[in-house]
Each structure stands twice: as C-alpha cells, then as structure tokens.
C-alpha cells in the first residue's frame, strides 16, 4: 500500500506509515457512510434544482465540498490514535464549552435562536462539534472516575460534566442538540457500568423535570420552554389540532412520505416541488426520499444507518481499551438517537426538534462532524487491529 514515511510528532518519532494502512479500515462502515453521502447528493440534486433560481446545483456543490472536506478530516482523525485524546480531555472540554459560549454571545441569530458563527464561506454550528468533543472528553473523565468505583458522587459529577454543555446549548435555544448531548451522556454512563439504581434515580429526575417544564411551570406562569418549543414537543401527539401551524410540517411530511407509496414518485414528487414540505433539504430530507423513492428508498436509507450503527456498536466489544469502547458507544448512541429523532419526526412519531439526519441533511457542520465521528470510529477500529496484530493474537476483526 502506502510507502513508509516517518511522521514526526513533538517529543517522539514514530513510523505511522507502516501502521496506518487502509486495509485496517472498516470497509463496511465506510461503504455505509459513502453510500449515505452519495444518496444525499443524489437526492439533493433532484429535489433542490429549483430552489435557487439559476443555480440548480447550489446545494449539491456545497454538500459535495463539505463531504470532501469531511472525508479528508475523517482520514486525518482516523490515522491518529484516539487514545491520545484522553490526556487532552480538559483542553477539549474547555474548548467545547468556550465555543458554545461564543455562539451565545456572537452567534448569528435565525428564527429566534443563536446557533451559528458566521465564518467566511461557512456558517459554523459549534453545538454540532460539541457533541463529538463531549464524547471524547466525557469518556476520558469517566475512565478517570471509574477508578474510584461506581459511587453516587462520580455519577453526579459525570452527569454534571455532560449536562453543562446540554444546558448551554438549550439556552441558544437548541432543544434537539441538548437532548442529543443528554442521550450521549447517559449512554456513556450506562456503558461505564453505573449501577441500575442510579439510572432509576436519573430517570425519576428526568420525568420530574419534564413534568415541571411541560406542565407545572407553564401552569404557574413561569415558562421554561419557549412557546414554539412546547408546541413542537406536544403537537405530534395530536397532529390534527391546527392544520396551519405547529403540526403543519409534520402533516406535510407524512403526506409526502405516504404519497411516495412503495416505489416513489420520482419527478412527480410534488410535495417537495411545490414547497409543501418545508426544510426539504435539511431537516425533512427523509420525507423527500420517502416521496421520491418510496418505501424502497426509505428502507434503503434506514438500512444504511442500521449498517453504520451496527458497525459502531460492534467496535464496543473489540476496542483495545475501555476508552475506545466508551467513545464508540457515545458515537453510536449519538448516531442512533439523531437518526431516530429525525426519521421519527419525518414519520410523525417524534416531535419537531430540528435535529439533522446525519450525512443526509444538507449542512456543513453536520456533515463534517459526522464524518469526523466516523473517523474516530475508524481510529478505534484501526487501533484494535494493530493491537491484536502486535499481540500476535488471532484478530477477531479479520474475517
């Protein structure tokens, strides 16, 4: 494969080239990721041709560029031994918190929330990257605390570390991402072996908070959620409430998907074409797929995600160390939850939370971060293989 080339890192000199080998990549995972990107671009090409008059390829080109940059980043991340991030946990965590605070102060506002930082040619959404940074940092913190055993104090502390960025993101406000961060935190806690009774307590607390936020506080005149958030969270439960407002998107999305029937409507996909389906290139791209390519297309996309998540979960058992296991678990949970939240929203069984569909939705931050996450997974895969080769043990990952 690649010629051996020494890579110089500060302080020490290791020959990465011999160790970095495409053969150690998880090809199935790569195929799933590339398949999703390709299908995203394919769908965008068809569905967004009329969105920007005169530039039929506006979204396609940009998504293509994001994907290319993302792939480069993925390779870059993949060739680094993820274990090294453990030492950097405090720095990574600090950067993450700082970036979210930055957006709260300087962020560009859109529809009542500040989520982006305007960069030249690019609009960066720190909360996207925060999810990944949190996984890397939180997994490291967990391992540090784990030495002291599964006591209440460490559970609370980990929870605090994880929920701090969730709270900050919630203030933007970005409820969806806050939920994803919460789920990541819980997943890592769960995999680190926190006792069940702790989870029971957490579950009780979540239920109490939800009850307060959704029912008691508004009743007492202290709104915690903004009106539209509350509406979004509850409207999917009774979608026929008001066809023109909060449930409109859910209703239109279901019509689009249903209209696709078994094999899709192709260019007759009028829900998208006539703009009945809002945000069809971002949050509701799954509905576009459902309408254009029918159940076949929807099942195909879901299968690619199933493949991706399966390959991520598979790493949990084969990682060379617990750190890799926790990172893989966090990423798998993130992907799983995002996909289910987004697809569920498109299908009308989950509330509207503004969560993107990883790799499918148009958007630089999401694509870049997801591909970096996959790069991390690849790093875990590569390191596991290298470790097993070094130990001369039979490699469980080689078929």
């Amino acid at each position, binding site marked *: 494969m690649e010629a051996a080339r020494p890579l110089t890192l500060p302080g020490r000199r290791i020959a990465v080239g011999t160790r970095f080998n495409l053969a150690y990549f998880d090809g199935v995972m790569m195929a799933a990721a590339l398949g999703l990107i390709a299908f995203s671009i394919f769908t965008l090409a068809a569905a967004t041709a009329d969105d920007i008059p005169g530039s039929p390829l506006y979204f396609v080109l940009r998504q293509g560029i994001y994907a290319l940059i993302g792939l480069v980043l993925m390779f870059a991340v993949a060739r680094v031994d993820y274990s090294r991030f453990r030492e950097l946990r405090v720095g990574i965590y600090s950067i993450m918190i700082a970036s979210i605070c930055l957006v709260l102060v300087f962020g560009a506002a859109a529809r009542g929330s500040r989520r982006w930082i305007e960069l030249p040619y690019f609009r960066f959404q720190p909360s996207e990257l925060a999810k990944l940074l949190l996984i890397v940092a939180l997994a490291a913190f967990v391992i540090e605390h784990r030495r002291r055993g599964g006591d209440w104090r460490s559970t609370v502390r980990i929870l605090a570390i994880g929920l701090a960025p969730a709270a900050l993101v919630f203030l933007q406000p970005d409820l969806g991402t806050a939920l994803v961060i919460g789920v990541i935190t819980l997943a890592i806690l769960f*995999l680190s072996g926190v006792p069940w009774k702790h989870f029971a307590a957490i579950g009780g607390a979540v239920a109490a908070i939800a009850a307060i936020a959704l029912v008691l506080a508004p009743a007492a005149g202290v709104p915690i959620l903004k009106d539209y958030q509350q509406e979004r969270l509850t409207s999917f439960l009774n979608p026929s409430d008001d066809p023109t407002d909060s449930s409109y998107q859910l209703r239109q999305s279901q019509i689009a998907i*249903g209209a696709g029937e*078994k094999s899709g409507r192709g260019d007759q996909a009028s829900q998208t074409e006539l703009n009945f389906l809002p945000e069809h290139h971002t949050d509701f791209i799954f509905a576009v797929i459902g309408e254009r390519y029918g*159940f076949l297309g929807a099942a195909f996309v879901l299968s690619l995600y199933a493949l991706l998540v399966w390959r991520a*979960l598979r790493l949990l058992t084969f990682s060379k160390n617990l750190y890799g296991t926790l990172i893989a678990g966090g990423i798998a949970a993130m992907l799983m939850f995002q996909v*289910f939240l987004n697809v569920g929203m498109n299908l009308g069984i989950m509330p509207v939370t503004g969560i993107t569909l990883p790799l499918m939705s148009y958007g630089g931050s999401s694509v870049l971060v997801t591909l970096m996450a996959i790069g991390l997974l690849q790093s875990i895969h590569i390191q596991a293989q290298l470790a097993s080769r070094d130990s001369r043990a039979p490699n469980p990952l080689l078929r």
Partner: protein
Amino acid sequence: MQLIDRRLGLIFCGFLLLFSVALARAAWLQGVRGGELRADARTQQVTTIPVPGERGRVLDRTGTVLAVSEDAATVIATPYQVKNPKQTAQRLAEVLPVSRGEIEDALSDRDSGFAYVAKKVSVDEADAVDELQIHGISTLPDSRRIYPQGELAAQVIGSVNDENEGLTGLEQALDDTVGGENGEQEVVHDARGEPIRFDTLTEATTGEDLRLTIDAAIQARAEEAIAAAGEAYSAAGASAVVMDPDTGDVLAMANWPGFDPYDPGDASDEQLLNRTTGFTYEPGSTFKAFTVAAAMEEGLVSPETSFYLPPTIKVADRVIEEAHARPTIHATVAEILAQSSNVGAVKIGTEVGAERFDEWVRRFGFGEPTGVGFPGEEQGILLDVDDYSGSTMGNMPLGQGLSVTPMQMATAYAAIANGGILRNPRLISQAAGEARPRDTEGTRVLSPATASQLRSMLEGVVAAGGTAPEVEVPGYELAGKTGTAEKAVDGGYSETDYVASFVGFAPARDPELLVAVIVDEPMYEHSGGVVAAPVFGDIAEFALPYLGISPG
C-alpha cells in the same frame, strides 16, 4: 468486560427496536395509508377548474354583432392566506367593479380555502389585480358574454348564466350550437397558493355563430315605437313583428318591456317573454280579413257584394253589436272590412258555414305554431269544429273565441300581402355555418286575385272612412287592419281590458314590408286604430326607405 457485553446487548436491542419502529412506521404510511396520503397531497396541490368554452356570436342579417363572447377573468381568493382582509378589500375595490363591503364578505370566512371575489371582470381589471400581488388573491381565465347592442332584442337573443350556459331566449334554445363546450383545467399550486402550472384536461371548444334574419336597425326602431306606445298608454305589454312578406324573413321581433341581458335574474317573466311567439290573445277585428278571404275563395262574395246590416244580430243566445251603435245600413264587403262591422263579419261567416270556416282558419295556420324557430312558440287556442256551440259562428268570424300569437297573425297576413302563399316564417338564417333555407315553396292558400282584392279592401282601412284613417307614411300607399279586442275573462269579456292591434303592410299594391303591432291592456285609449296603427306607421316610416323599398 462481562458488564459491557450485557449492556451492549441491551443497547443493541434498543437499536433494533428503534430501527424496527421506524421501518414499521414507514411501511404503515407508505404501504397501508399510501393511497390515501397521495390523494391528500393531490387535494391540497391540485384544483380542477372549468375552462369556459367561448360561445359563438349572434349576428343580425347584415352582420351586426348582437352577442359575442370575450376573454374575461374571475378573481378568486384563498381567504385563510389573506393577511389583512380589510386592507385587501380596499385595494381590490379600487381596481374592480365590486364594492369593498362585498369583497370583505367574500374574505370573511377565515378558514376557507376558496372564495369568489369578482366574477367575469375584464382582462384589464384582472391584470390590475395581478399587479397588486396580494398573497391569497389570484385570477382565473374566464369568458363573458357581451351584448354590444345592449337591451336590443334581449327577449329574442336571451341571456346566459355565470357558467356561460344559455338561460333564456335563443341562447338557451340553441345552446347546443352557440354554446362552447367547457374544458377542464387542473391548476397546480404551491404551498403559498400561487398557481404554478395549468394542465388542460379537456380543451374548451368555441360555439358556432348564429345568424338571424333580424335587422338591428329595424328592430331598434320597432322597439322604440312599441315602447313609446306602451308607455303612453301605460300598457301591460307590447310587441311588434316586422316581416318581409315575400320571404317570411322576420326583420324584427320587438317586445316591451325589456330587460338587461346582463342581469336576467332581475327580470320578471313578463320582461323575459318574447311576446311575438309567446303571447296569445283574441285577435278581434284583425281576424275579419280571413273571414272575408274564406268567403271570397269559396266564391260566396266579392268586394262589391252588398249586405243588409241591422244594428245588431242575434246568433243563438248571443246578440252581436257594433263597436259604435249605428242604424240599419247596406254595406259592401269592402265597407264591412274598412269600418270593421261586426254584424257584417258574422253575416259573411254565416255564409261560409262552420265546417268550411274551420277549414279556412286552419289553412291560414291558426292553431299551429308557425315554425319560426323560436323556442316555446305558442300555438294559440282553436276550437275543434265539433266543439262549436251555437254562438261560435257569431264569435269567430270577428276574431273572438280563438287565440293567436302575433307571429301567427303576421304570417297569415303575409299570405294576403304576398299574393296568396303561406310560408313558414324564418328567424334564423344560418346556424353553425349551415344555411337554414326559407320556405320558398310555401302553401298557396289564396288565389292571387283574391289576395289582390283583399289588399285593395285593406287600403280602405287606412283611408278616410276606415278605422285608422290617420296613419300615413308620405309617399307610400298603406294597407292594414285594426283590431280592438276585449280580453276574455271568466266566461265573458272584460269591459276595461283590451288588446289593441294593427297588422299592416306597404306598399299596398306590392307589399314588401309587413308589421304586426299588439298592445296589451292599453289604458286611456283602447282602439287599435288609435293605439296600434300609429306604431305601424312609425316603424314603416323608417323601415321602408331603410330597406330601399320604392313607393311603387
């Protein structure tokens, strides 16, 4: 790692569960509810609207357009998309012929997805609406009927409804010919309600032209004349038929009162009625010409045959009197006609006898529609000869006990005027590009000699000593017959309600113009010579030179 494996297993189960839920939900929406949701999509995206087929034109005999269709537009609204109904109504009212209040009413149902703002506005007005670019307001192509001559011949031409379907008159009767077939169009609109695409499902077709024998100028004059008489005598109604007696072509069918063809819903049945074919009346003295014609053709009398006329005559249980009491006289047939003697007419009718009289009445076309080609033509009432009572022959010879339409009367008089041939009159000369021929052959009902003698006698009516001596058209010899009929009421005759009529033609020796004038229930005056005859003069004064008819 035991713990990890166990918890991984749980996570994996959770993952499978979520995956299955998503897949199952997709299968539910796309498999089970797919058809229904696709229909929902179509319902909210596509509206089927009719594309009005443009109607054919209606032309008069010279090509003057009496009715034509032009492109128009209908302004519609999606009320729930209109942000500010008050302001929108204000802005629309400035460019549309609709009041602000009406528009506000149209927009008032805030949940509605469809409402008409204004129907059949001009293309210019529609353009002005489009330029306002009000969200939720749009225009659809439409077609509207234009009557360039206004109310002229409105009862004949008729009117259409909002769907461009014939509602009255020829518009309704010949809807199959004149009416275009509506097409259907699908409007695909986007989420904002803006029309994106128009798909034609079925093409609209244009209706065929209709050419009438009516002459717009003569029609106009006839309408003015009967309106003047109708108003002057506060009549219930009036009508006039103008005909070319040689061909049977109807040059005018005038009716009063008229109506606005753009607003037929506002018109009463009386106003909508084409009286020339739809109004029946007891003709009275105008009918005496046929009594005399029958007797002459039977060889029973000549114009010079003299009759002994007592002041009254008793037939069965009925005593016939003259309109104006007079002593016993001797009078010729010509004098009987000129002075319109009732007693004389009865005597002549008695000579003919019931059987032959009935044959003659039917020969002149009474009791049957004339076939002029106007819908719903009345046939009048004519007793069967077997049903004659003892007094019938004291009635019918002077025009009582039967009812006729103005068109029947004009048609029968045309046979006298044209030398003895009864022709079906004609109103429509061309439909859908195909000529509707005249009844060139006709039926000979009188010998030319009898017809000529009758014309001479009818000149006497408008001469000194006749019943309408004051009617004249300088340069032309006129002929005609007055009629002053008491209206039949419950088994008897009214003392106050009359039908005043006059049927005349000119030039008297070689008639080329025939006019029948009927004024229903004139007040103040009721004699045909006073009320109806001047109308004839008025029409003939214009029509004779207009048609280039030489005084002969």
